Structure formats: structure tokens, C-alpha cells
């Protein structure tokens, strides 16, 4: 379970470009919940995920993961419990290392990293099975450098790396946004499969409202660093993209027409 209380993040504090990216955000996610997050450009979605992952230090507030206060922990320590996939496919993997080496690095998240063999035989077997389950044929290319993979293949691999050790929280920041529509669909499909199979607590940012309503079990909408709408599964069933847009406009007092948050 994730409890976020009074979370505030201010960039460039005390300067002319001061920006309140998160304004006193309170949220609670229960275990196994799959939450989709929508909101316009600069709403604070990425900042929220980055604060959870420990990329940014927060200005105020507390983040609890399964009861433990993780607010002050550095990024690499939280990574033991948190899996992440980024918008930019090149961020999730080491391009000059092979597929199996990348998986091994992710697989040893909670283990001591000394002079044990980087990949053991049994581990390789395990990786091969997990890769095969992706259905992309990557299990036959385990010794290929990741630099040779397409964006979609890399996102699929990153997804597997983020979940190969079951995370307590999975953070997806527009992880299909830079892919072509067909590939994006495939990666979303994989996401759904992995998340539901392992009942992962997941936060997924998307710019696609239809997708936000179709995927997951709960949808929240952000604007100007605040959560302006929080829909549970029941409420989402009544919701259409048109209603969502009008809700957004009435709650935020701004219109959506010049935004990336498209109705696709």
C-alpha cells in the first residue's frame, strides 16, 4: 500500500521561475491497484512519479510504502521495491550490454553484487522463459546487444526488467508515448498481462483518455500540481471521454483544445 500525505514539490524555489509542481497531494493506493493518471502538460504527473521513485527530494510531505516511511531514501535504495519504465526507450536499458546481461542486472536488485558470476546457468534459463512469455522472439536473441533492439522491444524488455523481481510498486511514465501505434498497442497489451498476472500495484501516466479509462482499476486526473478527479472502477464504468473532458474543463477552469491530452 502507498500512502502519500501532504506531498509538495517546488522547483527553483525562491527564484523568478519558481514552480509549484505538486501542491499538497494526498493519495492512498491499495495493494494490487492499477491506477491510470491523466492531466495536461505540466500538470505534475511525472513529478509525482519521480518523487515516489526518489529522483527528486520533496519539499514537504510523507511517502509511505507498505507502512515504511521512504520519503528520505535515495533513489537506488527505493529501487529495491519500485520498478520503473520511462517514456524514452533508451533510459531503461544499458545499450552496450546484451539482453541477458540487462536482465541479470535487474534480477540481482536485492542481492549482494560482488564477484559472483554475472549470470548463472539457472538464471539464464529463467530469463529465457520470461522473455519467451513476451512473445517477441527475444528469447532467441539473448546475446544481442540491447542497442540493436527497436524502441518497442526495448520498452518490452524494460517492462520485464522492472517486474522480474516482483516490485511493490510499478511506475510507468508514458511508456508507450514514443512508439508507433501498433507497437504501443502491443506494449500496452504486455503491460496489462504482466500487471494482472502478478497483481502489481501500478501507476501509469498516459495522455490517451480512452486508454486511461480502458486500462486499470482507477483513474486520477491532475492539474496544476493537484489531483482534481479521482474515479474508482464503478465510476469509470459510467465515464466516457466526452464526460471526462467536460469534467476536466469545469474542475480546472481551462479548456483542453490545445493540449496533447487527446481523445484518440
Amino acid at each position, binding site marked *: 500500500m502507498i500512502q502519500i500525505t501532504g506531498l509538495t514539490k517546488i522547483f527553483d524555489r525562491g527564484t523568478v521561475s519558481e514552480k509549484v509542481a505538486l501542491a499538497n497531494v494526498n493519495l492512498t493506493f491499495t495493494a494490487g491497484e492499477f491506477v491510470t493518471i491523466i492531466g495536461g502538460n505540466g500538470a505534475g504527473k511525472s513529478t509525482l512519479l519521480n518523487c515516489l521513485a526518489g529522483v527528486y527530494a520533496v519539499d514537504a510531505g510523507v511517502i509511505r510504502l507498505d507502512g515504511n516511511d521512504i520519503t528520505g531514501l535515495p533513489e537506488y535504495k527505493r529501487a529495491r521495491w519500485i520498478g520503473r519504465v520511462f517514456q524514452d526507450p533508451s533510459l531503461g536499458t544499458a545499450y552496450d550490454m546484451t539482453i541477458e546481461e540487462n536482465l541479470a*542486472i535487474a534480477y540481482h536488485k536485492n542481492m549482494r553484487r560482488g564477484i559472483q558470476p554475472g549470470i548463472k546457468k539457472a538464471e539464464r534459463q529463467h530469463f529465457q522463459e520470461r522473455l519467451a512469455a513476451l512473445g517477441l522472439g527475444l528469447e532467441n536473441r539473448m546475446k544481442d546487444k540491447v542497442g540493436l533492439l527497436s524502441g518497442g522491444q526495448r520498452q518490452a524488455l524494460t517492462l520485464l526488467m522492472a517486474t522480474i523481481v516482483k516490485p511493490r510498486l510499478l511506475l510507468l511514465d508514458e511508456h508507450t508515448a514514443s512508439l508507433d501505434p501498433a507497437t504501443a498497442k502491443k506494449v500496452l497489451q504486455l503491460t496489462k498481462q504482466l500487471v494482472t498476472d502478478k497483481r502489481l500495484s501500478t501507476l501509469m501516466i498516459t495522455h490517451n483518455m480512452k486508454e486511461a479509462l480502458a486500462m486499470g482499476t482507477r483513474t486520477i486526473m491532475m492539474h496544476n500540481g493537484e489531483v482534481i478527479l479521482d474515479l474508482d472502477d464503478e465510476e469509470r464504468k459510467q465515464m466516457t471521454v466526452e464526460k471526462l473532458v467536460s469534467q476536466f474543463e469545469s474542475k480546472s477552469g481551462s479548456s483542453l483544445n490545445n493540449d496533447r491530452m487527446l481523445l484518440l
Partner: protein
Amino acid sequence: MTLLALLGSIELGLIYAVMALGVFISFRTLNTPDLTVDGSFVLGAAVSAVICSSGGSPFAALLVAFVFGSLAGTVTSLLNTKLGIQPLLSGILVMLALYSVNLRVMGGRANIHLMNSPSIFNLWQVAYFAKNAKLITATLTIFIILILLYFFLQTRLGFALRATGDNETMVRAAGINSDVTKLIGLALSNGLVAVSGAMIAQYQSYADVGMGLGMVVMGLASVIIGEVVFGVKPLLRRLLAVVLGSVLYRLIIAFAFAMGMPANDLKLVSAIIVAIALSTGTLKSAVLKQKRHLQS
């Protein structure tokens, strides 16, 4: 070029290859050129000269050199990760500081001559191989170091190190403290560089406080020449390429000397070689662009 000069170049190439492997770790594995090298090379030589001239074991000298070199690399890394000083500048600062440290290690002298002290190169003197003692020792040493490094880079820690140079975001997301991997990388790198310096001091029976000048450029030249001539895949071949690149570099220099290049021009020529090698990527794409431009 005489056979003797050829043999000498190969020996030097093999010894400097230890340094080149160190440069490979910082430049290729961690992806940050590290200028500490110019200082840590001399540090190794100084430590080695002092130990050997006072009757210590030449092997112990290499080990102590490794430890001291690692410490130098550690300082550079801490300046970068803890104090937020840019990597290049951190290296320059430590290199500068080491100049004074090295003079202190050498007891205030600018150079030390090793007369008749034992060295790893003359232990074979009595044995059957005496004639090729230096070549055999140099080959054995680089072989052992290469194999150890090869295996190290395939351990869990080695994986973490390699990934750090590729993609720090991914490394942290995998629960690795990239500050620590950088530190281990720079320590290992400068440790090897110092061992190379220690070997050179024993090989030449001589250590000089100025002998590290341009060392990092030489290392880069070896790494790049190796990559261009011998390829980069797979890992073992890549490491071997660094060693062969170092030997090749020495042979090129020896050849240039034989053709009448004045010794004073050595650094200039080395810098030009590295500049050309580093810019091949850019030059290549510029030429391709020009071609495409002309065709359309």
C-alpha cells in the same frame, strides 16, 4: 629498425598495455575520460622505485603501487560524486596534487635511478629463458591482468560497472548506487595505471617525476587504435585489442623515430594521432553528408 628496437617496442607496448587497460575502464566502461592517469602512473613508478631501491620485493612494489593508484582514483571519484566537481576537473586536480605527492614519495628528488636492484624483469636471469626474460615477464603479467579483468567484468559487480557507463538512470533504477560503482571503477583503473608505472620504473631502472606527462593520451591512443584495427566484439577480443593497440602504438612510434622523427615531437604526434582517431566518427558522417549533398 633493428630487431632489438623492435623487441624493445613490443616489451614497452605490453607494459604500457596495463595502463591502457586502466584507461579503457574509465574511458570506455565508465564513459568518462579520467586525467588522474598522468599522476597515478608516476605515483606507481615512484612507489616502485622507492621500494626496489631500498631492497624491497619488486612484486610487493607492484601491489603497493596498485593500492596507491586506487587511492588516487578514489579521491578523484569522491571529488566528483561527493563534492560535485566535474569529472574532468576532478581528474586534473588530483593529477596536479599528485605531482607534489610523487615528489614526497621520492623523498624530494625529481628522479631515482635503480642500480642493480632486483626487478620483476631480472628474476629469470639465471634461468634458461634469460635472453627473453623481459619479454616473457611482460607477456605473463599482461596476460594475468587481462584474464583477471575479463572475469571481473563478467561478475555481478562487473556488470554494474559496465552499466554505469552506459546508462546511470537504469543503474539506479536497478538498485545500484552509481556513486559506488564509479568509485570502484576509477580506483581499479588508476590501480592498473600505477602498476604499469611501477613496471616501467623497474624496466627502465628509473623513475622521474615528469614521466607521466601525456600518459592518458597514450592510453587513449592505444584503446582507439586497438578498436579500429582489432574490433570491439566480444569482450575478450575487446580487451585483447587494447593490449595489441598499445603494442601497435609503440611500434608506430618506434617506426617514426627510425624514420627520423625528432624525439621532441613525440607528444605532438601522439596528440595528433588521438585527435584524428577520436574525430573519425564525426569526419565519416561529414563526408557521407557531403556525398549525399553532391548526389542530390
